[in-house]
């Protein structure tokens, strides 16, 4: 993965725009686990959104696994998003769907060559929720919901997994389990992992830690 001169700002009513990401350069090898640290408002989430093509950057270049993300639009962009996985702090499970259906949700509109349900079950088993496949999110604990969200992020066998404060809504014990899970998956699948966190312990467990402040990368470990 490769970022060069990436910049993103948001207009503010009656004032100068807020620069959320400012001239960020970053290069990662495949299979690396990177922690993106920094205080609230430092630009971690925005940078993940830019990498995940949820936001468009104002300037700069982002390349992921050979795709120049900044040059994509429309269907290509949607296709790119299917090649990465996203884990959110608030899980964002669909309350109307079971755990199994939530995992399959990204594939609902698409025809694929494999058995969606079988793969979803595999993934649920992988995250330790094989027996909760039929449960609605409202019947799952926070940690279980995040596991379902991780399984969902993996359904497309992503080359890059982006996790935005994945433990932010969890207690420390559950949070640790989730980080263990993410790192194990990285180990098993060789997926590049970027975790945005302000937790130093989590950062310490990653291959690299990148610190952000006021939208800029301040240190690369």
């Amino acid at each position, binding site marked *: 993965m490769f970022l060069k001169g990436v910049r993103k700002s948001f207009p503010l009513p009656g004032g100068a725009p807020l620069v959320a990401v400012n001239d960020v350069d970053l290069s990662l090898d495949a299979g690396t686990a990177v922690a993106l640290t920094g205080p609230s408002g430092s630009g971690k989430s925005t940078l993940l959104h830019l990498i995940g093509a949820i936001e468009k950057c104002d300037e700069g270049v982002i390349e992921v696994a050979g795709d120049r993300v900044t040059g994509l639009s429309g269907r290509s962009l949607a296709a790119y998003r299917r090649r990465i996985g996203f884990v959110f702090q608030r899980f964002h499970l669909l309350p109307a769907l079971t755990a199994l259906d939530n995992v399959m949700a990204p594939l609902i509109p698409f025809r694929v060559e494999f058995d969606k349900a079988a793969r979803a079950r595999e993934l649920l088993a992988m995250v330790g929720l094989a027996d909760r496949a039929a449960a609605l999110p409202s019947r799952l604990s926070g940690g279980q919901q995040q596991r379902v969200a991780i399984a969902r992020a993996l359904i*497309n066998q992503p080359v890059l997994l982006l996790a935005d404060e994945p433990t932010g809504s969890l207690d420390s014990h559950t949070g640790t389990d989730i980080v263990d899970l993410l790192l194990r998956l990285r180990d098993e699948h060789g997926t590049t992992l970027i975790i945005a966190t302000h937790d130093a312990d989590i950062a310490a467990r990653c291959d690299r830690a990148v610190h952000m402040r006021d939208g800029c990368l301040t240190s690369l470990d």
Partner: protein
Amino acid sequence: MALSQWRVRLRRSLALLSMIAVAVAGFTLLTGAAATSRLDTVGTVAANYRPVYDLLVRPKDAVLPLERQRNLVQSGQLAGMRGGITVDQWREIQAVRDVSVAAPVAVVGYVMRTVPVTIDLSDVLDPTVERQVLRVQPTWVTDAGLSQVPDGPAYLYVTRNRLDVVPNSELRSGGGLPPPEEVDADGQRVKICPATETIGEDDWLQPTDLRARSSLTCVGGVGSTDREGKAMRPAVTLVWTVPFLMAAVDPDSEAALAGLDRAVTSGRYFTSAEQPTSHRLEGMPYPYSMLPILIADRPRVDTTLDVDVRRLDPRSVDLVRTSSDDQRLRAALGGESGMPVTQRSIAIEKPYRSMVDRMLNPGELGVEYDLATANTMWLHTFWTVGPANTTQAGDGLRAEPAPYDLKIWGKGADDGGTSRYVPRELADTSVRDGVAVHRNLAHGYQLKTGDVNMPDAALGAVGTFDPAKVSLGSALSAVPMDTYFNPGAGGADEASRQALGGKRLSPNANVTGLLSQPPLMLTTMQALPAIFDPGAYSTEPAYPEYQLNTAAPISVVRVRLAGDVGIDAVSRERVRVIAEEIARRTGLQVDITLGSSPTAVTVHYPAGDYGRPDLALAEPWVQKGVAAVLVRAADRKSVLLSILVLAVCALAVLNANTAAIRARRTELGVLACLGWHRRQLAQLMFTEIAGVGLAAGIAGTLFALAFAFVFGLSIAWTHTLLAIPAAVALALLAGGWPVWRAARPDPGQTIRPAALGIAVRRRAPRRVATLALANLARTPGRTLLGAMSLTIGVAALTMLLAITFAFRGAVTGTLLGEVVTLQARTVDHIAVAVTIVLGIVSVADVLYLNISERAAEFALFGAVGWTDAVLRRLVVIEAIAVGVIGGTLGAAAGLGAAAAFAGGITTPIVWCAVAALPTGVAVSAVSVVVPVAMLRRLPTAQLLAEG
């Protein structure tokens, strides 16, 4: 606090305000327009409520089954009626309380009068030849040009030599007419133009006998004079015979009913007391009665005379100069070929006018073809015909051919002279039974040798009248006025309309055809005995059914009631009571024509023998009781429209209110957690809703006024002010349920995520469509509310369509119904538009709220790679699902309600429902435009970050 809420939730407040404003403006406009439309309808109906006469009294056997079945009154039957009402019954009707006018019509029959048409051919003669023969071939063109009836040819022999004829003054009786002599250049005299010989009276005048209907005229050069001593002209005279339907009326009643006295154009009107005057002619052993008559000053027959003139081969000259047998000569000339020299088309108006002048001033003009020799129009003979021979066919009638012996026309027109041909059109197809001839008996006087043999009845014209000046009443409530007017009949189907070239078929001279001319000759009731007295006339055939109805000569009595007769129920009841009393007193058929309107009844008319094809004709009959039906329908429709619009508007506002309050459920929960109790929460929300309602009311008023101004709707401005209290009331009423729900004392339930309460479904949504349906099921109340809005909209649409059909169907094809329906159409269209708009807004609101509340889900779908097209599809499927639910329920509800309104389910109503269902789906599909646009603007990253 409420103020700050409006500000903070500006978009939602504006959405709610817009919804209420549109709803109340729509309600105001529609109820106002519906009320105006109702008033217009009632006003139009009231203005056209009263026809020329209120009741039509006929003999019971004159009523066709079709009239009873469909509540109709036929028209054009007068000519075929043989009386049936006695003079005493007429007097009885006059004596009924509240009867102002009782105007009788007694049909006498057809009197034939001839109109000479002289065709001058001097301009087509060949000046280079000494002698020439021209053949003038007349063709009667009738039935809107469809029938071309050829008549016997007229031959004209013209010589430059002098022609000597024996003048009338030197003719000796009993010797026959000596032929003219042509004086050749060498002084030789050649007898030409042998006199016509009678070959049998009956055969001679049959309308089919073209040979007998031909003539030969010989004209000489300079110095030649005719038998009256006038210089000869190269001209032929053709005979145009007009059948006059003669009827007796009561002059005073007719003046009061139709203003006949004001329609007199020359001469004078007659009085009710006017009886025939008695006269005596020298040599006549008995007196004769002169009946006063008024004659129509214009013909009422659709006929044009086309003539084709050819110059015959020169051999024809020799034929004329050598033949001594008139019959053989004309037969031989008929076989000769000729060169066309001219074609002419002649209208009847001018010759008719000339004939009427002679009837008004007998003897003064001294034209040969008039019976001017006695200065009297003797009534030797007249004919009667029966009713059209019809059978019921579908919704209408089929006229069947009714052949009869043409010899009935035997002695021909006028006094039966040798050239008094009956109309040639009489040879065409007949659809009337009972053609009879009535000949004067002179009351059985035995003539002695030398007595003058003339009828004891004659016609004395006192004046002319213009039928166009007779009052026929409003066209929308026109009743049969066969006495003066036959509007003819248009084509009832496309083939017939095309055949007629868009024209109407009108009566012609074939009195046995379908359409009858109105009486062109009117006499007084007092004069009737001169004709109807036993012994006055004998009838052939001699069977009883052909005889004149001397005991009951009146065919119809038209009754006008005294005073104003309104459209209200009391007036209608009063008319019914009077009608019943007349029926009870006389035993006659009484039809209430008050509140009726013309309608078309299809009558199939068989093809004629001269080119007219089979025609389906739309005869203008009268539908009874139209006014009452229209007013009832207008009342129902007005009420129905108001209820419908109110329901749609209330539902739309309820939906908007629910959405507005639902959007604040978390905030309300927080307030509840902070200690606010239910009443305070309700008070807060009601204050906000009332404020929005007030603003919406003002906006709605302005909108309604602007809309009414732009589209020219007649709505009182005071009515539009109703929008303000209506908006506040509507907002508060529609807010009651959602406020009650939102202000419930369980704050935890209020602030808990909405999705918690949903049930586990049996089948997982693994396709976009099933996911869309699952999404709708997540908020069943809202989905139902949106669907209900659509249900009412579609139901309204179904009902309005059905009402329109039923409204029209109730008064099928009547003129008044058409006018009223046309008047009411604007408000119908607005109603449909408003219901559709409200339906769109409601469904759009449901979708908008769904997207708003599930914005994070949509953001997630985008983040995991769903394309925009898939997201749009998800929303569209949700919309269509709402549309199918709402459309199906609406079509079913509309079908039921419309059926209740129309008194049963009819095919048009089912079609309306079928048409309204896809409309609901289409409306839903249209409603996705705004929500889908909103999808693009979702702050995906923010939503995903916030959760």
